[in-house]
């Protein structure tokens, strides 16, 4: 598996775990507090920060794993980790473009919520969800492209 694909997997897994935890906690809180009163700012910032940290940790682990695998197979670890070719770049561009369109479609929903003067919590949640779904779809497109051809 190319290192870039491993990184895409790390990104996809983190993009699923953290938002699911965030929305499970926040929607659970809505049973006791109204959307107008709910404190979402810190939980959202923590969710975003945790995603960044987990992605960095995952990248380091993927790098270590790739390095060990390369050494076991008698190759230079730097060749496997540093090498990013035109196919990797094409797949990344394609996935990012699809992810961008998905996020952009989500933004239309966010705009609608804003115009309808929904609570800030719903607007922030929709915004976060748009980014998350866009990133996830982009990652899935990249992984499928690596396996089915591009």
């Amino acid at each position: 598996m190319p290192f870039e694909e491993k990184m895409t997997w790390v990104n996809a897994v983190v993009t699923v775990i953290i938002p699911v935890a965030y929305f499970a906690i926040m929607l659970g809180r809505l049973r006791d507090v109204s959307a107008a009163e709910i404190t979402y700012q810190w939980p959202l910032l923590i969710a975003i920060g945790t995603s960044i940290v987990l992605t960095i940790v995952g990248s380091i682990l993927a790098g270590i794993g790739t390095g060990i695998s390369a050494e076991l197979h008698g190759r230079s670890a730097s060749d496997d980790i540093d090498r990013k070719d035109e196919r990797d770049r094409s797949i990344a561009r394609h996935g990012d473009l699809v992810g961008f369109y998905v996020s952009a479609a989500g933004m239309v929903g966010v705009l609608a919520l804003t115009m309808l003067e929904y609570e800030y919590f719903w607007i922030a949640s929709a915004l976060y969800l748009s980014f998350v779904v866009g990133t996830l779809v982009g990652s899935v497109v990249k992984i499928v492209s690596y396996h089915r051809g591009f």
Partner: protein
Amino acid sequence: MGKPTRVTNRIRALRFAAGEMTQADLADRVGVTRQTIIAIEQGRYSPSLEMAFQIAGVFGVPLDDVFRYPGSEGETS
């Protein structure tokens, strides 16, 4: 995504003719990942013209000895 290329290639045959060169060796010489060489061999990826020339250069043969496109044989421009 998911659409097989119509470009065919003889990379596998040329590798074996070149002293059973491995996909990893070819990847190292072209400067790409082994997975990209595998994808090209299996017709899942069409390389850029530049990479195609680099691959042909490794084997020391003209480009159309490595890559073919249906209907292009014998055509002149």
